[in-house]
């Protein structure tokens, strides 16, 4: 019994040791977001202080962060939803008709370094007058989201017994009907995983947004980048803005972690 307790303690100690290097910067960011500029740069770091909301006020009121938050949301939700609309039927088709080669081609689009697309896109979207539009940003973010959704969902659909769809077809469904009525309702965890991660890819995307957005469609990562000016770096605001950015990621991951792990390993082992 004691041995078991002991090994439990050891286990937690190990977990803490591994997690600490990852969690410490996060903790530092959150604390710093509630500090004044001078408190932040104090060495050794202050652990006990009177928190201030000034940084958040500056971020949302002076820097119009709500606008960037809105832009990021529109682009992340837009690209995720569009990727789902295109990606789910595509993934199902690849899975059902065993078009693995097609799947690999789609993945190739994802494996290509994003930077390779940047210049052609910039030229294309400039010609089309689409730089600094939501459509251009959503389209560019789909380059990441769509292949990811297809890839995760192909594996997920492979794990569904195909007799279910056949039964639905015999029961009177078209293939599309069976997809809507049987396949999609059974794919909740997979869709949740794929869309959460696609959303986060878009939410965190820096490179495409940097080149293709401007004042009107500026997203959160670009806004933070703009905080760093020649004259000074307002660390408090940067930290507050960082918290705003990482909060949705953390919340989404916490809520869906169970499904995300399930979704990522879908089809790996027969359930």
């Amino acid at each position, binding site marked *: 019994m004691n041995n078991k307790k002991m090994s439990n303690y050891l286990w937690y100690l190990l977990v803490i040791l591994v997690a600490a290097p990852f969690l410490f910067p996060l903790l530092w960011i959150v604390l710093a977001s509630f500090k004044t500029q001078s408190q932040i740069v104090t060495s050794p770091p202050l652990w006990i202080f009177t928190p201030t909301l000034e940084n958040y006020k500056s971020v949302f009121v002076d820097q119009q962060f709500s606008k960037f938050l809105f832009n990021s949301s529109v682009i992340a939700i837009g690209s995720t939803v569009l990727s789902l609309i295109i990606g789910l039927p595509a993934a199902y088709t690849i899975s059902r008709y065993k078009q693995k080669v097609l799947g690999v081609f789609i993945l190739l689009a994802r494996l290509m370094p994003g930077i390779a697309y940047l210049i052609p896109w910039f030229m294309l979207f400039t010609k089309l007058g689409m730089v600094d539009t939501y459509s251009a940003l959503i389209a560019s973010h789909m380059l990441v989201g769509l292949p990811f959704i297809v890839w995760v969902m192909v594996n997920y659909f492979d794990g569904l*017994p195909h*007799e*279910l769809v*056949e*039964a*639905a*077809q*015999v*029961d*009177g*469904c*078209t293939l599309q*009907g069976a997809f809507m009525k*049987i396949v999609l*309702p*059974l794919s909740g965890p997979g869709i949740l995983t794929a869309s959460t991660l696609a959303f986060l890819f878009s939410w965190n995307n820096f490179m495409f947004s940097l080149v293709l957005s401007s004042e009107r469609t500026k997203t959160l990562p670009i806004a933070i980048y703009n905080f760093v000016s020649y004259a000074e770096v307002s660390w408090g605001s940067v930290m507050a803005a960082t918290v705003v950015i990482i909060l949705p990621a953390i919340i989404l991951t916490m809520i869906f972690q169970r499904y995300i792990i399930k979704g990522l390993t879908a089809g790996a082992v027969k359930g």
Partner: protein
Amino acid sequence: MIKVVCEHVFKKFGSVIAVNDFNLEINDKEFIVIVGPSGCGKSTSLRMLAGLEEQTSGEFYISGQRVTDKQPRDRNIAMVFQNYALYPHMNVYGNMAFSLKIQGVDKQEIDRRVKEAAEILDISQYLDRKPKELSGGQRQRVALGRAIIREPAVFLMDEPLSNLDAKLRVQMRTEISKLHRRLGATTIYVTHDQIEAMTMADRIVVMKDGIIQQIADPQTVYDKPVNQFVASFMGMPPMNFLECSIKEQDGKLMFISEDLSITLPENWVSYLAGMKGQQINLGIRPENIVVDSSAHNIQAKVEVVEPLGSETLLHLRVGGQGLVVKAGPDYKPSVGEMIGITFEMNKAHVFSKETGITII
């Protein structure tokens, strides 16, 4: 009048011919069982009839209508799958009502038919349960319920009992037979289990390597197999085969092999007289071999004794060849003992050694 016709159906997977010239006419209310070892093309044939698999060539007709190019939903069929294929996100009621909802049948009518089918299958108390909360037998009943509720022209069943344990399988077998009698629906049932085929079928279709070997009622398939494959596939334990040659000794035609010589029955002589000197396979079922201490012409060595309670299976060796014999439950010779046996030659068969085709 529901008649199902399969005409010259072929299915090729690349260079492999999975189904080779499948021809079958199924009469109204008939219960057809397609039986064969795994990979013989029986399931593929059924799936092509259902429209779930495309045939390479050939035609299907249901009730006189050509359905070859029709979608599964337009063929007026219902199918029961081996793994039940119940919709996991719907409860039993939802599973059974699904097809009627799609057809746009009104709610009251759906309710009436679901409850009626549930009553027939004795699953009324499970209507609000999800499939995962049911046992295998209950799931199979729901799958049957989902099929019968549609009142289709033809029921297709693809090894519906093979996921069940042995006892439940026997029980569900009789229930499906009862259900068929009650509904009188034309049914095509695929199985690899020859007992299911024997007990349920009006007619059996025996397949091997994509080719139909024999179509006949169960007793005919058992008593008059067209070839050695059918003879060995139907019956448990399977028919014994002894390699012999036909020779003339002392003016009589005999089956001769090592340690074995049997005089040909009178009525066979005219058939086999021309085959003198040729090799054949003599087929005899375990129940047609009699242990007889007074018999001296065939002496067999007991190798294994398997008492089954109702009977005893004896694994014997005659010369170099093995034989299985069904004996009475009280007969338990010791291993290594030599015993005398006789063959009931009027129940025996003779197969060509080259082609396996039945000669007698």
